[in-house]
């Protein structure tokens, strides 16, 4: 690991990938009972968290409470108008044993200080092998997002165009997510690895390089990465993606790659996967599925056949991914707990957020109102 906070050197995505190879997370995954926890989160993130939290002391005695519902969500929102579709391809069960691994990372805003925003991130890996389910959860890691963090992430002349603080939080979340994804792809062999979201990259918070390397490593180890997105809005003449394959009787796959690709310019955002709509159970919902472009359609259908046999599919969604999401996500009490932790550790007073509309207009300050 070359990252050095004192020198203020920026984190390169190649550094992240380099850390996969020798990570002790591999040992954890080899033998689930032998955990070396200190290596389960990249050291540079722990250090970054630690250094950023030290800047709390300069930010005054007050800490403005954030509403717990303000969880960051930057899933891509695409609205397509697909006029003609090809016929969905049926997915048949494949009864060959396969390990299913799911990864999810969540972030949440904890509050505001005089010179920044506090957020927390947490990651989870869940794997199901021959019916047995295990998990590993790391975090929460707390960050005080100030100019200091931006400098550490992007260097002095780095990107400053990120939307503050959402872009920074996304970057931190992405760093942890890619680290865990990299370790999983590096360790597991001949498995199905489920990512939450899409295989889209090329934004400042989500660089292309790291994802490319992760996918490459996965392929090298015989793994198939399936990125399943819950929130992407794709419609067929106004029909939601979740309803798209409703009329098809069984599990199926629909190629919508060209339609999606048409909406994206080649630069900077890149679709590293081939985009499908898929339905994994007869009465389930359909979701956007991104599969590594280097994986053939046959391999994709084959892996989906294994997924529906080796995992539990509830309402069309894989259970391991559901569990990973449950494990990583922050509840309101998590947020309150972290606020309490901060208030005790840094001796700061938690104050409620001022609602300007409420102050000015009282009960008439309804933010739902169209101005």
């Amino acid at each position: 690991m070359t990252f050095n906070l004192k020198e203020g050197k920026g984190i390169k995505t190649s550094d992240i990938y380099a850390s996969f190879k020798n990570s002790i997370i591999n040992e954890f995954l080899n033998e689930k009972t032998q955990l070396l926890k200190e290596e389960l989160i990249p050291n540079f993130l722990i250090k970054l968290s630690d250094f950023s939290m030290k800047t709390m002391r300069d930010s005054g005695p007050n800490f403005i409470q954030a509403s717990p519902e303000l969880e960051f969500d930057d899933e891509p929102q695409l609205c397509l108008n697909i006029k003609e579709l090809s016929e969905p391809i049926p997915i048949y069960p494949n009864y060959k044993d396969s390990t299913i691994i799911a990864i999810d990372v969540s972030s949440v805003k904890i509050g505001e200080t005089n010179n920044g925003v506090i957020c927390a991130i947490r990651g989870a890996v869940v794997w199901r092998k021959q019916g047995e389910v295990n998990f590993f959860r790391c975090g929460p890691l707390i960050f005080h997002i100030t100019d200091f963090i931006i400098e550490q992430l992007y260097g002095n002349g780095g990107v400053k165009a990120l939307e503050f603080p959402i872009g920074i939080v996304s970057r931190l979340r992405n760093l942890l997510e890619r680290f865990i994804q990299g370790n999983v792809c590096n360790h597991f062999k001949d498995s199905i690895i489920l990512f939450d979201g899409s295989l889209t990259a090329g934004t400042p918070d989500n660089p292309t390089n790291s994802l490319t390397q992760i996918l490459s490593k996965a392929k090298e180890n015989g793994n198939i990465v399936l990125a399943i997105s819950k929130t992407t809005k794709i419609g067929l003449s106004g029909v939601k993606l979740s309803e798209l394959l409703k009329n098809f009787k069984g599990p199926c796959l629909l190629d919508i790659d060209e339609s999606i690709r048409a909406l994206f310019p080649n630069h900077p955002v890149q679709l590293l996967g081939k985009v499908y709509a898929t339905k994994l159970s007869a009465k389930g919902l359909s979701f956007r599925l991104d599969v590594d472009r280097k994986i053939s359609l046959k391999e994709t259908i084959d892996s989906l056949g294994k997924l529906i046999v080796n995992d539990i599919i509830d309402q069309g969604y894989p259970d391991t991914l559901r569990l990973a999401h449950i494990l990583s996500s922050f509840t309101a009490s998590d947020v309150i707990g972290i606020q309490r932790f901060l208030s005790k550790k840094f001796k700061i007073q938690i104050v409620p957020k001022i609602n300007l509309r409420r102050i000015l207009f009282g009960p008439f300050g309804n933010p739902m109102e169209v101005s």
Partner: protein
Amino acid sequence: MKIYKKEGDVIQIISFPNEIVEKGDYLLIEDPIVDKGLLVQVIDIQFANVPGVFEDILRDAVLEEEIEGENYDPMEVSSQISILKDTKLLVCRIRGVLSNGEIVFGMNYLPSRTLSRIIPYKIENFINSTSRSRPFQVGKIRGEAELILDIKALDGKLNIVTGKKGTGKSHLAKLLILNLVKYGAPCIIFDINGEYINLNKKKTGETLKFGKFITLTPKINMKFTLSQAKLTPVLNMMIYSLDLPSTSARVFIKIWRELERRGELNLASLGEAILKWDCHESVRDALYARYNMIIESGLFTDNINESLDFEFLMKSISNGGVVVINLKNQPAMIRKMIVELTLNKLTELLSNWKLQAIFLFAEEAHLYLRETYWDDIVTRMRHLGIFATFITNQPDTIQETIYRQADNIFLFNFSNEHDLEVVSKAAKIDSETIKKIVKELPPHYCLIIGDVVNNFPVVVKVEPLEFETMGETRFFFKN
């Protein structure tokens, strides 16, 4: 601890798991701005409704059932999140305002939510007054602090001890009796189960060095001559216990006076006179039937040597002692006759100032006390000097009016909703306190309400006794 909400005289307080608070405990909410404190009592402890806690618990449940795994929390934040799940909501009743070292009742104010400091308050400091002249330890509060009451708080008062079977009611009654005797008070006990007969004997076999303890057993050492019993007690016994009609009662008075005039007031003459008296056949039959019952009761005798001088007996305990009237194994009718006769005799002695006052302990009084006596005891007899303590495991056998007039109530555990509903109507305290606290009291713990605790309801673990209790449930299986 922090104030969460105040509605009327109920204050809700948020408390963290490391703050040990139990139901019944007192807290002082100190408000530095107004320089006074609100004294509140915890009546219920609930989980605080922390936002997101449902999702947290659901997540824990899912994880526990479905999967195994490890958490790595480098900043050790999880402990703070876990604390939130166990955060408690203390539902408290305002009991008074502490101002300049004095507690003011009925006063109320809104303390500062942000500045108030909430601390446990030792209510025993107010109850255990050093000025008390006749102190006795009733038990311990919070398992450590001694609760010292003044036995004088029972003087002239009506007390109720109630709770379900096996919770320690009789035990407390014995503790009260022994302390009354210790301070020179006379007591009389209607002992329905024969459990007070060894009250003066320690478990080691030793006998108490204070007070006089006498057990009266009907037919054995509790017999009266007619002249000792006197007309009014005997007549009342016949009317109220044996349902003698009023017409027959009038004839009975004439017969009694005639026999008195002739100097022939004895059982044989009474029977003979009833048979020969010039009256209607139905009156004669009614009187003779009651006469036969009197004879069968064994309560009366013509032998002066075996008769009981009740006045002398009562005087003998006037400086501290107990008369236990053993009603065990007595038929219901005889029990009622004994109680009627005893209360009449006591009333007579008190009316004539031959007795200063007496503390009456009545276990399961509904089994022998006639309906009209309840009100009589709490009104007329109380003024004469009979200070009753009713002990029962069936609270609905005591009328609501009695509860309302009770000065002190000692409540042991009740789990039955109906019983709780009955006792919650007790005066001097809100029904919610009783329902919330009493339902969860362990055996030998009791909630004391009333004058004896300066009107601060207190949960106390009753002091163990070193005497033969005799009231413990008998079991078949030994182990």
